[in-house]
């Protein structure tokens, strides 16, 4: 895709954690990144690692940094990350305390391309809500946000957004079922929206297929296991219609029509 890319300072820099709150099943971590650029673009990501005790967790991991979309960037240089603890890296980050050091490389990759104004549908699944937060800030109230969650405690993540429609797998909050049902209704209601989506691979694939069917333009923020985040290792490739592309330099946002499927092998979720 030819989306926007704010370039990163060269090298890993150390910043200070300034906050770490729980938001339902997730954590919202604030970092004062004084040395980073003030204008990352929604969909771009950072490679994060704790300064202390990175490693030495379960099975002596984590060793490599981990990739996270930024959820919000504030004027004072504060970056916010929204994350779910699912393994040794996210576990360690979830336990960061204010005052601790965090290593950052970023912003990296290509963000969403908001293109010419128009209706926008932001579709998120679970922790995939993260990059939609800054995107909805940027697009304004015109953009509708549709989010799907596993359960009520996960759905608390929706509280970060001003206005949002929610679906949960168990119906405990909002609609019972998948967020793709909400999307289908919106698309059925007509209008030429662009769809921006982030979430687990099966959800992204459902969104991609739905949009392809109706010829609706869709941008998907994908995930794959990353070692470096800046194109060095060729490890993060996903198959596209044009062969493998490195998600860290040529993504993580890809246009739906570049993909045969959004289900990529070995994605972290």
């Amino acid at each position: 895709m030819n989306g926007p890319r704010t370039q990163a300072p060269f090298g890993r820099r150390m910043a200070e954690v300034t906050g770490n709150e729980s938001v339902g099943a997730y954590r919202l971590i604030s970092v004062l990144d004084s040395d980073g650029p003030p204008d990352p673009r929604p969909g771009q990501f950072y490679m994060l690692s704790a300064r202390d005790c990175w490693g030495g967790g379960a099975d002596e991991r984590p060793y490599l940094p981990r990739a996270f979309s930024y959820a919000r960037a504030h004027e004072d240089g504060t970056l916010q990350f929204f994350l779910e603890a699912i393994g040794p890296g996210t576990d360690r980050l979830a336990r960061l305390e204010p005052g601790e050091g965090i290593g950052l490389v970023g912003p990296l990759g290509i963000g969403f391309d908001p293109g010419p104004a128009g209706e926008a549908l932001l579709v998120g699944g679970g922790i995939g809500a993260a990059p939609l937060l800054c995107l909805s800030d940027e697009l304004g109230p015109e953009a509708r946000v549709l989010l799907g969650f596993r359960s009520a405690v996960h759905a608390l993540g929706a509280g970060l957004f001003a206005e949002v429609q929610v679906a949960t797998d168990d119906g405990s909050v909002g609609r019972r079922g998948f967020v793709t049902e909400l999307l289908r209704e919106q698309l059925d209601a007509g209008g030429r929206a662009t769809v921006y989506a982030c979430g687990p691979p099966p959800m992204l694939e459902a969104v991609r297929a739905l949009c392809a069917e109706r010829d609706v333009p869709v941008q998907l923020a994908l995930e794959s296991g990353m070692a470096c985040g800046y194109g060095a290792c060729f490890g993060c490739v996903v198959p596209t219609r044009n062969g493998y592309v490195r998600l860290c330099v040529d993504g993580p946002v890809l246009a739906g029509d570049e993909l045969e499927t959004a289900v990529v092998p070995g994605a972290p979720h």
Partner: protein
Amino acid sequence: MSAELCGVELRGPILNGSGTFDAIAARKAFGDVLLDEFPFDLFVSKTITVAPRQGNPPPRLWETPAGLVNSIGLPNKGLRGFLAEDLPQLGELPVPLCVSVMGFSRDELAELVAAVAERDEVELIELNFSCPNVETGTIMGADPAETALSVERLRPLTRKPLIVKLTPNATDPGAVAEAAENAGADAVSLINTLRGMALAPGTNRPWLGAGTGGQSGPAVRAIALAQVAEVSRRVGIPTIGMGGIATGRDAADFLAAGAAAVAVGTESFRDPAAGRRIAAELEAILRDERGFLPAASSERTAL
């Protein structure tokens, strides 16, 4: 802290490991500041082959305790694509350039070396011998005789320095290095990755798309250091040491073990500027522990 490798003047002894830094992609991510703060003193390209390659199916990465197993599979644009698109961009880097090549037969190797050697941007050529010869089936770089035959074939094709990259998956890397030296190689580099494997959690299937991959990172450092010391003792040509180097102390250890230069690989994934930090730490060590390096070279046989 200037250095010299096979007659090429370097501003220092820190290289990148082939395939662990893509200067073209990094320039996209970090901009032209990359050129001002370039982390290596000599840039080694990712290994190229005659035909373009997509590389292995993902997943290609598996994190291990203190390391990484990768099964990248040498994706590259092929010789023609590399010469046309990548080489001019690599020529803009502020440091000398070494191109890494791999052939699946001696004819392919000859084609690669001849074509790459013609280009002015290229000062050195690294021969990545860690693949099976399609004619004989043996891993070229594990077998002294195969290595010698290949180097003898390539030697007359260029006067540019030829570096043989050794595989660590061999009973006697020292014997392979000796064979390379006798056949006319100008240097050897080691170690490449050690064959490794992981299963996808909760299944009995390999995690990596290619089934197996190569282990790198601090996990292999002591193994690499032993091989570098052994090979340095057995050959007269320079050795380039790598494998898990993450600090200036590690770099100093590899130099003390007999390496003429060192390369940083996996550590660059943790910090793109790791090469600069390691160079600074190394400089401080060499300054504080005066006489360290010369002592090291004369002590080689003590290791």
